[in-house]
C-alpha cells in the first residue's frame, strides 16, 4: 500500500518535471522575446542597454542552460517576476489559485449534489421514461460548448431578465450578497457542463452494484428498496465514480478556464490566458505547471481516498 502510493508519487513528480521542461521549451517558441518587449515598452533603451539586460536576465545563454537556471530558482521557490502585474509570480498566482479553487469547489459540490440523486433515480428506473429523459439531458450537458452556454446564460439572466450580473468581478467595494450574486452564473455554467458526465458515471456504476449478490441478500432480509440503494449499493458504486471524477479534474480545470474568461473571473484560468496572450513568460510557465501539479496531486489524493473508502483494496493487486 505504502509502496504503491510512493511509486504513484514518484510518477507524479516525474510528470511534473517533464511538463516543466516541455512547457519551458514551448514558451520559448512563443512569438517575441522578453527583451524586445522591454525595448518596445521603453523607446529610450539603447542597444547597449538591451545587451546588458540580456546578460542580466541570462537570455544570451543557450536554452538548456537557461532551463536549468530557471529550474534551480524554481525549486527554491523563485519563479521570477510577472511582466504584466509587476509583482513576484508567486504572489500573483496564489491569489488567483484561491479564486479558482473557490469556483471549482462550489461548482463541484453543486454538480455532485445534483448528479448523485439524478444518477440514482436513473439507475432505479433503468430504461424507463425518467432514465431516458435524464440520459438525454446528460448528453446535452456533455455536448454543449461551455462558452456558448455562458453566452446564453448571460443573454437570459443579464440582458433579458436583468437579474444577475454578467461580470464576476463586482466593481468597487460591494457587500457579500453582491459578490455571491456575481458567482451564480459562473458556478451554474461550470456545474452544468460537468453534471452530465458525473450523472452517467453514477448511473452506470450503481447499475452494476445493483446486480451483485449482496443486494439480493439485503432485499431478502427485508430492507426497503431505498435502504438497499442508498445504504448498500450506492456506497460501493462511489469508488469507481471517485476514480473517474479525479481523472476528469483536468477537463474540469479546462472548463473553469473558459468560465473565468467568459465572466472575467480573476482566477488561474484567466490569469494563464492573459499571461500567454500578453507574453508574460514567467507567469504563464508557473501557471501551467501549477495547474498541472494541482490536477495530478488531486488524482493522488483520490488514490488515497480510494483506500480509505474501500478497506478491501490492496494496491498490490492493481499493479
Amino acid at each position, binding site marked *: 500500500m505504502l509502496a504503491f502510493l510512493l511509486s504513484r508519487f514518484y510518477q507524479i513528480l516525474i510528470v511534473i518535471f517533464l511538463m516543466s521542461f516541455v512547457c519551458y521549451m514551448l514558451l520559448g517558441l512563443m512569438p517575441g522575446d522578453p527583451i524586445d518587449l522591454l525595448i518596445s515598452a521603453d523607446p529610450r533603451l539603447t542597444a547597449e542597454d538591451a545587451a546588458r539586460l540580456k546578460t542580466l536576465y541570462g537570455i544570451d545563454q543557450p536554452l538548456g542552460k537557461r532551463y536549468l537556471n530557471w529550474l534551480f530558482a524554481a525549486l527554491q521557490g523563485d519563479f521570477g517576476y510577472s511582466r504584466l502585474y509587476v509583482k513576484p509570480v508567486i504572489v500573483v498566482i496564489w491569489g488567483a489559485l484561491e479564486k479558482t479553487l473557490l469556483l471549482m469547489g462550489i461548482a463541484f459540490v453543486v454538480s455532485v449534489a445534483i448528479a448523485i440523486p439524478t444518477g440514482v433515480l436513473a439507475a432505479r428506473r433503468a430504461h424507463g421514461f425518467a432514465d431516458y429523459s435524464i440520459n438525454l439531458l446528460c448528453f446535452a450537458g456533455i455536448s454543449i460548448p461551455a462558452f456558448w452556454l455562458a453566452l446564453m446564460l448571460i443573454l437570459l439572466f443579464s440582458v433579458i431578465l436583468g437579474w444577475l450580473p454578467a461580470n464576476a468581478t463586482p466593481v468597487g467595494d460591494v457587500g457579500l450578497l453582491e459578490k455571491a450574486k456575481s458567482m451564480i452564473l459562473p458556478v451554474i455554467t461550470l456545474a452544468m457542463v460537468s453534471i452530465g458526465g458525473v450523472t452517467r458515471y453514477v448511473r452506470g456504476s450503481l*447499475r452494476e452494484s445493483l446486480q451483485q449478490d449482496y443486494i439480493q441478500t439485503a432485499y431478502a432480509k427485508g430492507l426497503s428498496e431505498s435502504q438497499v440503494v442508498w445504504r448498500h449499493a450506492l456506497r460501493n458504486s462511489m469508488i469507481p465514480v471517485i476514480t473517474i471524477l479525479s481523472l476528469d479534474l483536468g477537463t474540469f480545470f479546462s472548463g473553469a478556464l473558459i468560465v473565468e474568461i467568459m465572466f472575467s473571473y480573476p482566477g488561474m484560468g484567466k490569469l494563464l490566458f492573459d499571461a500567454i496572450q500578453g507574453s508574460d513568460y514567467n507567469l504563464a510557465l508557473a501557471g501551467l505547471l501549477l495547474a498541472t501539479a494541482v490536477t495530478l496531486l488531486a488524482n493522488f489524493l483520490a488514490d488515497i481516498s480510494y483506500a480509505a473508502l474501500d478497506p478491501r483494496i490492496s494496491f498490490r493487486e492493481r499493479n
Partner: protein
Amino acid sequence: MTRSQIFVQRMMLHRMAVISACLLALLVLFTLSAPIIEMILNTDASKVNLFSRLMPFSFDHPLGTDDLGRDLMVRLAYGGRVSLLVGFTAAIFAAAIGTVIGLIAGYYGGWLDSLLMRATDSVIALPLLPLLIVLAVIDLEKIGLPADIANHNDIGLYRIIVIVSLVGWTSVARLVRGSVLALREQPYILAARSMGVPAKRIIFTHILPALTSPITVATTLSVGNIILFESILSFLGLGINPPTPSWGNMLTNAQELIWEAPTLAFFPGLLIFVTVLAFNFVGDGLQDALAPRSKKR
C-alpha cells in the same frame, strides 16, 4: 423487463442515433450547398457591407447579417465546412496515433506497455485547454517553418488539426490496448505465432482488422470533443483566423454585441451544440450496435 419496456428501450436507443445521423447528413448538405445558398440569396458572404450591419431577419437575409454586414446564414454554411473538416480530419489523425500506440503497448507488453500507458494516463490527467492555448500561439517560424508558410492565413486550419490530434489520441490508445490484450490470448493468434508469422504481420493482418468496430466507435465519439476544442480555440481567436468563418470564431465578437444582436451569439453556438450532440448520439448508437458486450444492461 416487460415487453413494452424492451420496445421503448430499442426504439429510444435507435431513434436518437438515427435522428442524429439524419441531422448530420442534413448539416453536411447545408454546408456543401453554401455557394448555392449564396447564389439564391444573391449575396457575397465574404464581402463587407457596412450599410447593412446587424440587419434583422428578412427575405434577403433569412438569419440577418453580422457586424460587418455579411449574411449570417451563408457564413454559417461556410463556417460549418471548416468546423466539420477539422472535426473529421483531427479525429482520424488522433485515432491513427492512438491505434499505433495502443497496438504497440498491447502487443509487446512489458516495460514498453507500462511506459506508454503511464504516458497516456498522464496526458489524460493534464488540463488540456491551457496546453492547447500555448500550442496555438507558438511561433511556427521558431520551429523552422519558412516564413511564407508560417504566416499564411490558412495555417490556422492545419495548426489546429495537428495540435488537437496531438492531445486527442488517448481514449483510442487505451481502448485499442485493452482489445489487443484480450485478442493476444486468442488461439488463432497463438497459432499464427507458432507458425512463425512475424509480429508485424500478426498485428496488421490478424489483430488490426478485429479492432475496426472499437476504433470506429471511439473515433466517432471523439469527433464531438474535437469540434468543441476547435470552437473554443477559434472563439478565443487562436484557431481559425478570420475572415475565414468557423462556428467558433463567428462567436468571437458576439459577447460584446450581445445587447444589440443576440441572434449573432445564438445560431453559431446552436449549430456547434447540435453537431456535437449528434456525433455523441451516433457514437453511442454505434457502440450498442457494434460492440454490444461493452455496454452492460
